[in-house]
């Protein structure tokens, strides 16, 4: 090791791969991204092409190495991986993909999920695996294949995650880390082995899944061809890494008592880290594995920034073609002219159905309380407040299990000061803002640095994370939100039957 060593982190996100380079002090050297599409061939389906993702990874990696790393004389000491959770890629016995990968947002297993969730084994499997019973879960996706895509199911030698596939292409090894495995619904988060009851339910054997490894696992080497074409060598360590959700939490410095992190990208999540799993009788929360000693627990929402983008596309004013960013900023400025609580106008943001805490795929959007005094700006503000009330309701569910004193928020939407302030006011807690892809990259860097022995533990590693600018809550606004929130919460559950009926008319 010398000063010129560096660490690369590769994050296989939902829509793009982002590669970051850090020196050994954790100083950011450079980053590049490359995006790939999600195909929706049928309603409810979301798929991605594993070969395109692989080529995009190679291409971005090569560009970053050739443009930023090699010219500056850095030697790549280690490469650590992160990936979006819940993807399933069936491959044949030669390891070649049988069609596209199914990604987290795919809903084709709705029926399978409903069945399992309402059966006694659903509860047992949830308790053992920590993954809520939902179409996102690979357990449900594989069960769907067993029932509805029998041909492919029988041809499948192994069910991989997209990350396992990319690592297999680069190194020849077929592995999955505990962290990503813990989001499959097939992995026992207490015994760190594949869960027999879940495997039985899906109709597969443990040998049809990748080999389980800890997140620090580094017995991987790049194939010689890639060493040559990328200008790396056999000493470059390839580290398994973890899931993006867990790494974002780690990289945000959320560690220990009283801390939680909120991510608002297209979707959103609220998470805490702890040594114990949260036992939620209503099965509303996930418990994913970060390391053998720590769990990341929380709840995800479908309806994050994607809802505000929808609102902007439909009602925003576009001065330049396709300038969504500018149009969103314009709307936020308008929203800021309206008092907290939008003069009693409420919005339920469930345009995409909802996961935590109501777990209702049929939920739909609602504006509630409109009167003649409400103007366009009220609708804008109510839309943003509705998205964040939903985040707040996840936070409140978490608070039934853990005390939360401070929040670290990240993601492109949470980065708007207006949104950050709103979150601080709703939760009545101080809020720190960090960039999400930076958090994932930094989290992966800390895993690599800890694996190399630069830190004794991840806990120690997080101590160095600087705490950026803070938003302090406004008590008056908080009180306004707390008068509205019970109505938001009641409507969300009260409307269940009507959601069901209206969703039936829409499909």
């Amino acid at each position, binding site marked *: 090791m010398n000063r010129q060593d560096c660490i690369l982190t590769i994050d296989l996100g939902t829509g793009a791969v982002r590669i970051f380079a850090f020196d050994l002090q954790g100083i950011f050297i450079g980053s590049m991204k490359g995006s790939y599409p999600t195909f929706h061939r049928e309603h409810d389906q979301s798929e991605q092409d594993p*070969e395109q993702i692989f080529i995009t990874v190679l291409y971005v990696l090569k560009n970053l190495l050739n443009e930023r790393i090699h010219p500056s004389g850095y030697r790549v000491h280690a490469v650590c991986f992160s990936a979006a959770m819940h993807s399933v890629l069936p491959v044949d016995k030669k390891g070649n993909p049988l069609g596209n990968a199914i990604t987290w947002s795919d809903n084709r297993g709705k029926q399978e999920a409903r069945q399992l969730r309402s059966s006694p084994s659903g509860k047992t499997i949830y308790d053992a695996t920590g993954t809520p019973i939902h179409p996102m879960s690979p357990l449900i996706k594989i069960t769907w294949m067993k029932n509805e895509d029998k041909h492919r199911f029988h041809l499948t030698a192994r069910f991989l995650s997209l990350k396992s596939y990319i690592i297999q292409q680069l190194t020849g090894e077929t592995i999955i880390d505990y962290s990503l495995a813990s989001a499959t619904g097939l992995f026992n988060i207490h015994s760190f082995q594949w869960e027999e009851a879940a495997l039985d339910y899906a109709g597969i054997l443990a040998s049809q899944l990748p080999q389980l490894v800890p997140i620090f696992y580094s017995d991987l080497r790049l194939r010689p061809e890639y060493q040559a*074409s990328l200008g790396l060598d056999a000493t470059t360590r390839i580290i398994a890494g973890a899931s993006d959700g867990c790494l974002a939490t780690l990289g945000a410095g959320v560690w220990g008592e009283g801390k939680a992190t909120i991510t608002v990208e297209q979707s959103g999540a609220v998470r805490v880290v702890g040594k114990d799993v949260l036992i939620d009788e209503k099965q509303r929360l996930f418990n994913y594995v970060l390391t053998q000693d720590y769990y990341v627990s929380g709840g995800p929402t479908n309806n994050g920034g994607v809802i505000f983008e929808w609102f902007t596309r439909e009602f925003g004013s576009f001065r330049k073609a396709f300038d969504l960013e500018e149009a969103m900023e314009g709307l936020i400025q308008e929203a800021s002219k309206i008092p907290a609580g939008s003069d009693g106008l409420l919005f339920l943001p469930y345009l995409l159905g909802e996961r935590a805490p109501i777990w209702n795929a049929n939920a739909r959007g609602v504006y509630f309380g409109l009167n003649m005094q409400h103007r366009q700006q009220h609708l804008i503000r109510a839309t943003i407040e509705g998205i964040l009330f939903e985040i707040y309701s996840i936070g409140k569910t978490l608070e039934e299990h853990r005390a939360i004193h401070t929040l670290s928020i990240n993601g492109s939407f949470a980065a708007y000061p207006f949104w950050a302030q709103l979150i601080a006011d709703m939760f009545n807690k101080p809020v720190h803002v960090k960039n999400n892809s930076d958090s994932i990259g930094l989290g992966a860097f800390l895993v690599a640095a800890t694996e190399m022995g630069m830190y004794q533990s991840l806990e120690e590693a997080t101590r160095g994370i600087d705490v950026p600018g803070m938003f302090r809550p406004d008590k008056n606004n908080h009180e306004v939100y707390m008068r509205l929130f019970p109505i938001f919460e009641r409507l969300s559950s009260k409307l269940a039957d009507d959601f069901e009926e209206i969703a039936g008319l829409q499909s």
Partner: protein
Amino acid sequence: MRIPGRLKRPDCLNPFLLQKGFSKELDLFPHILEFGVKKIQTIRLTSFPVEKSNSFSIYYIWDGRYDWLIDDRPYILYPADLALVLPGQPFGSPRGTLDIGSYGWISLDIGTADTSLGPFSGLSPTECRSIRKILLLNNVPVATSMKETGKLFQQLAQELHLQEIGYQTRTNQLIDALLILTARQLIQQSHSQRDFSGSFMKLEQELRKNLSHQWAVEEMAALVGLGTTAFTEKVKTYTGFSPLNYLINIRISEAIKLLKQTETNLTDIALDTGFYSSQHFSTTFKKLTGYTPSQFRKDNTDLP
């Protein structure tokens, strides 16, 4: 019955019909098959049945409301709306009748060459490729609020009637203008200019459908409805790649699938996925992956 006749007055309020082979006005314009205005004052049965169109035609509504079927899909057209009908598409009124009102139309022979609409056209080869692609692609064959098109129809009628000095050139310019305007409007209406990810997704599908085509950046930009510079910048921010490098991603990933799954020979894979030659394919593939295509195939089909 249509009676070929001379233009009475240089405007489009009076019905007229010019037809190739019958109307002297068109002698200098072999690419204009028909040009006319139809006025309907009484409804006659079976006056407008759904039939296969045999030419490329643009219709413009002057007056009234028309329920038409274009390529088996129903559209309602109001004054100042435009409809584009392609050769071979079923076109007509589902009830077989024409309602009261008036409309104009022009039928053109724009050939089949990729880079030219015909000797009459002054469009550059690249522009022609883009415009032909947009017109023939047309997912939504109807454009609304096209007063500009109405003006062009009127000017065309005037040029053909008055035949003043330079009218041959002017007429051909007006036809180019009409095609450009139609293409622009169709692309703007099919992309709201608000949703780049949606527009880019549609472009992705087109690229995949025609992967063997030698795509130019201008063509890709045209399909999204942006100028080349704005398009390139937008794609770079959105995907991290230049448009042509993004296309290479798709080409190589499709090639990988063919290498892994079939016995197709390398030259066919190269051409099917849009490379100039197997040499070009091998070089690009090796540069990106470190493998030659044949090494890659061997490595991935010999695994246990």
